[in-house]
């Protein structure tokens, strides 16, 4: 846990309507095997940050390094090592049936049919949607689609998983399943995680390190979850609420 695999420093992106996101303040660093969560209010630039890591946006200013290369220029070199789940899972589903979609990446990378079948069934089992394998994707419910997209991201056993609000629209038990799954991947396969989310309840079980952004993109703070949630002033400024247990913890520590 020391080699940085993602390094973003002072990146600026200006959208066509001149909304500017300036991801500055602290550097955003992910080390090998680390689980990183990004918190921040709506529209602060979490997705923008992830898009830079994935090479979908090229930095207009500043610098981005992933696995030692600039993703905006050489993403194809690192593509197999990165699994992705974007905010709108629906847009990530390309093929007609669940099986076809999850097998999209391995087929593109030229695995044999046997390998593809094996990989897909492992991925489906991991996410717990074997029963959907032959359903047509456009008829699934929102939550089901997200799980399909997640299976598609996991299928090649990537070293880095980038997830933009992976829990949105899932029921609590599916959320916990996914948290457990991510933690297992991290523990057993050393997968590094970068997760943007609004669900503060899941931060403590999921994160080694939390980054907090404020509106406009400034990276205000970083640290282990417990530390971040203790900083009441910070949370207020960034529309984040401490998870319920943390609050209790604060009360008791204050009372003591």
């Amino acid at each position, binding site marked *: 846990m020391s080699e940085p695999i993602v390094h973003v420093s002072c990146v600026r992106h200006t959208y066509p309507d001149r909304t500017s996101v300036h991801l500055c303040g602290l550097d955003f660093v992910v080390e090998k095997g680390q689980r990183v969560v990004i918190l921040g209010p709506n529209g602060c630039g979490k997705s923008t940050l992830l898009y830079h890591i994935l090479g979908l946006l090229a930095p207009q200013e500043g610098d981005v390094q992933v696995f030692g290369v600039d993703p905006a220029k050489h993403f194809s070199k690192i593509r197999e090592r990165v699994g992705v789940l974007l905010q*709108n899972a629906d847009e*990530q589903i390309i093929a007609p049936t669940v099986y076809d979609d999850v097998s*999209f990446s391995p087929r*593109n990378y030229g695995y044999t049919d046997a390998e593809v079948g094996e990989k897909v069934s492992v991925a489906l089992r991991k996410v717990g949607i074997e029963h959907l394998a032959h*359903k047509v994707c456009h008829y699934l419910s929102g939550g089901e689609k997200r799980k399909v997209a997640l299976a598609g991201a996991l299928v090649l056993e990537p070293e880095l998983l980038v997830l933009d609000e992976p829990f949105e629209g899932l029921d609590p038990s599916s959320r916990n399943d996914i948290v457990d799954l991510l933690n297992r991947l991290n523990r057993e396969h050393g997968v590094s995680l970068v997760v943007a989310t609004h669900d503060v309840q899941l931060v403590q079980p999921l994160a080694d390190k939390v980054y907090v952004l404020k509106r406009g993109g400034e990276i205000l703070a970083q640290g282990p979850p417990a530390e971040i949630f203790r900083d009441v002033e910070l949370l207020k400024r960034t529309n984040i609420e401490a998870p319920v247990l943390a609050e209790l913890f604060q009360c008791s520590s204050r009372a003591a």
Partner: protein
Amino acid sequence: MINTFAQIDQYASAGHTAWHRASALSKLLFTLVTIGVAVFTPTWGPLVVFLAVAVLLALTARLPFKLVLLAATTPLFFAALWLVSRWNGRLDEIAVTALRPVVASVVALWLVGTTPYPDLFAPISRVLPRVVGDSLFLTYRAVFVLLQRLERLWRALFLRGALGGSLRRRGERMGEAVGTVVLHGFERSQRLYQVMHLRGHSGRICGCRHWRDLRAEDVWVVVAFAAVLASRILLREVGRP
């Protein structure tokens, strides 16, 4: 048609008959040849057999009868127009003019109702320029997302009381509504290619599936093919004036 489209797609992807297992290549060849033969058949005798074969194919593929009926009647309107412009009182000509497009339409239904679209597009996109070939896949996928979007839009219009008023008001509202869908389509398209890129698509979309692999079930396609050719030869004089 809104349902037809989704329905056919659904049957193609979720069906489990022998026809679904047969290779896309043999089905595509069969379809093209049968349509080609039908179009050049001047007598109604063989065409009746073709139609029987086509309907049998569609029904044994477990496509609902309603869908087959719809496919059979869709081209009739145009055929009727044609007959109006060329009416000469000959019943055998009318029969031929009506039968040919119906045969073609039902055979095409069987093809698309048993073959998921990547298998179907893979050979077609190979003979087209890259831009066009890629568009074929992406357009098809976009249809479903946009159809869903239109469905939700229709819901919103319904719930917010928009389905009334003068024709002009309705036209304007429809335009605005379609405008939101155009914008959505635009934004979605920007992310779509990014996603394909992230998921390993490089340069050209391949329907990397088994469209060429021959299967045991292709025997049945050959049987159907034999039936078509045999009737074309044996019945060629039936219906000749």
